[in-house]
């Protein structure tokens, strides 16, 4: 078989391609069978919902590829929302300043995760379950049950303003630019190569001079900052800063990352698949909602997809191995004796 032929086949057979095809399939079938899926309003909605998930899924992909995980992202988002509200209440009236402070806060919160994971060598799963509770608790300390909702209309409008001539919010362009940046970082830079190396074998990565500790620390900080950015968007989109903003969102993010083909054990996967998975989950959920599928059923479907995405590749591999072994070692008479 010629080299290009092999490459084309493996590209088509890849998980990225499967997820991409699934997005198109769900969109087309949805548009044909469910009223409203074909409308521009539907797509505006899907996009608005996908933006914060995508923003967090970008750095999360890198974190999971290094073999770690960050479950505190939704709580970082929530805490950022409340701090943003409190800043406004205190009379900080420059939006750029508020955004900058929020991003800084997010980076610090992420760095705390990073410090516990790299500095003390604790498992990130445990650390970030802890900070998931801690940061959410702090969010309630900041705002309690109050909501801050009296932002200027131009702020809230600007966050969700459409790209001229369409219904799609312009924030998606920001997401697109960031996605390209993260994609290049992961797939075309020495840093990205290092991430895959440490996710597969941290010891060999250290022997190659890769600073595993430092890299992971900065990744957690970046994840915090991106979660904070998602928090700013969340607050402006709903024109409301509350302590419970975005609770449970970490599951949507992790679901997208895993469904996108990133191995929970690290070292494997890519950004394209994750972006496709964010789109797939968004389109699917909203289309089914339009079809009056109850919320519980939606949760069940998302959960099943997630399990399928984690189990799927393993089962396929196992079946293949089984088949290969089953093929009998036929005692063919040999000519050589």
């Amino acid at each position: 078989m010629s080299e290009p032929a092999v490459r084309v086949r493996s590209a088509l057979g890849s998980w990225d391609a499967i997820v991409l095809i699934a997005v198109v399939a769900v969109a087309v079938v949805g548009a044909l069978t469910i009223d409203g899926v074909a409308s521009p309003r539907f797509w505006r909605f899907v996009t608005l919902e996908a933006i914060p998930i995508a923003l967090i899924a970008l750095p999360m992909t890198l974190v999971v590829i290094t073999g770690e995980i960050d479950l505190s992202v939704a709580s970082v988002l929530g805490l950022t929302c409340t701090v943003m509200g409190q800043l406004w209440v205190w009379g900080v009236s420059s939006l750029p300043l508020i955004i900058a402070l929020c991003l800084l806060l997010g980076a610090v919160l992420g760095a705390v995760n990073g410090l516990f994971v790299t500095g003390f060598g604790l498992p990130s799963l445990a650390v970030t379950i802890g900070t998931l509770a801690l940061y959410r608790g702090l969010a309630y300390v900041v705002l309690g049950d109050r909501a801050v909702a009296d932002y200027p209309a131009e702020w809230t409008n600007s966050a969700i303003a459409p790209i001229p001539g369409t219904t799609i919010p312009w924030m998606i362009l920001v997401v697109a630019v960031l996605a390209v940046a993260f994609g290049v970082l992961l797939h075309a830079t020495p840093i990205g190569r290092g991430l895959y190396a440490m996710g597969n074998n941290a010891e060999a990565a250290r022997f190659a001079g890769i600073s595993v500790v430092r890299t992971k620390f900065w990744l957690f900080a970046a994840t915090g900052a991106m979660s904070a950015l998602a928090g700013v968007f969340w607050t402006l989109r709903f024109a409301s800063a509350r302590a419970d903003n975005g609770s449970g969102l970490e599951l949507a993010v992790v679901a997208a990352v895993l469904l996108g083909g990133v191995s929970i054990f690290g070292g494997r996967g890519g950004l394209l698949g994750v972006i496709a998975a964010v789109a797939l989950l968004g389109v699917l959920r909203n289309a089914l909602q339009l079809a009056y599928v109850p919320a519980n059923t939606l949760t069940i479907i998302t959960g099943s997809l997630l399990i399928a995405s984690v189990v799927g590749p393993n089962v396929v591999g196992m079946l293949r191995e089984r088949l290969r072994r089953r093929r009998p070692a036929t005692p063919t008479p040999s000519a050589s004796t």
Partner: protein
Amino acid sequence: MATPLLALSGVSKSFGAVAALRDVRLELYSGEAHALVGENGAGKSTLVKILAGVHAPDQGTLTLDGRPVTLGNPADARAAGIAVIYQEPTLFPDLSVAENIFMGRQPLRSLRRIASAEMRARAIELCERLGVPLDPDRPARGLSIADQQIVEIAKALSLDARVLVMDEPTAALSGVEVERLFTVARSLRDSGTAVLFISHRFDEVFALCQRVTVMRDGRWVSTDPAADLSVDEVVRRMVGREVTSLFPKEPATVGEPRLEVRGLTRHGSFADVSFTVRGGEIVALAGLVGAGRSEVSRAIFGVDPYDAGQVCVDGKRLPRGDTAAAIEAGLALVPEDRRQQGLVMELSVERNATLPRRWALTRMGLLFGGAERRAAGTWAERLQVKAARLSDAVSTLSGGNQQKVVLAKWLATHPRVLIVDEPTRGIDVGTKSEVHRLLSRLAGDGVAVLMVSSELPEVLGMADRVLVMHEGRLAADIPRDRADEESVMLAATGQGGRS
């Protein structure tokens, strides 16, 4: 002769497009030690894995005592009395040495409780038989590759098998441990066990084995009594051409001190190690397994911390425990354990080969598709890496070819100080002389080479000076003209004075 204890005939095995074995045969008789030799990638380990029940052959038959058998999995092979020492140790890092040795068949007390005391006692006894006192309670994590190999050997011995298969068990061992292993293997052989022995060291092959099977490119070439063969003849059959001079160290002008190590100490591993390696020099670090040679190399390279002392390269002191800084200063380390330390097994050959110098391959900060492949390709060719495609995972390569990738990875960084820990572990004759030629040429270009090696002929052939370590300390510093087998072994076993 009688019916063979174990026989393979017409065995073929392919991995995708790669035909690893083609119509191979092998007969093992009770009470014989049988050598299997061939170049890297000839298919030896694949054959071993078929005997172990790890791979099912695509074609061919396997007979035990003349009856056809199918080995569906490793448990079948074990039940059939076949014990296997794999080329690459596969220990459970979090289990103790004793638990690893008796994995899956721990001695039991009533109520199926594990008899830990008995297990420990038997583990100690096995290690002692091999002459390497290992603490049975310590976890396998962090064991040197040689100690891991000892655990694997103990595991196989504990099975009291009828067929003992050893895939390069000696690659990381020094002469003393090899001799112990052979004593054990000979006594097993004499009590009726069939031993299959794989090695790239021919002196070992001839010291242990009665018959020699040669393989080339996945095919069976010949099986003959060892007494009828010479090393040259075996090599000719393996390689298909003449291979000349094994250790061509050429004299080089010795320059300024490149690597200076002063009073390096790590509690529990090594103490007060001081030496200098000059540009153009190849200095060997010899000693027994566990003498602390690899630990010293790792500390110099900055992957392990140290408690006291200092390391200077070209007169500049290196920060402690900073690998990136060491690489920046021109240091390179080919580590002993290629699977854990040398390579990221799941990544491709090209990614592995370019990992330490990936920054140098960027254009505008980016790695474009071809850059890594081209860079890796040059070195893969020079070292004759046998891989179907450079984009294949390095785990699909044969052991010796993986070792070549580790060498390529570090030679390509153009180091000024090169530390190689068992550089030719598992590498076949042809490439071995190529590696030695490369090391010699590097020294000629002014590189300082520190070579940790357990293979005495390699040490004596290559080194300008031999440093010998004994129990964590430097025991001797022997210049080339005074270095011989005896002086090195005496110092290594703690009987020589500082010369």
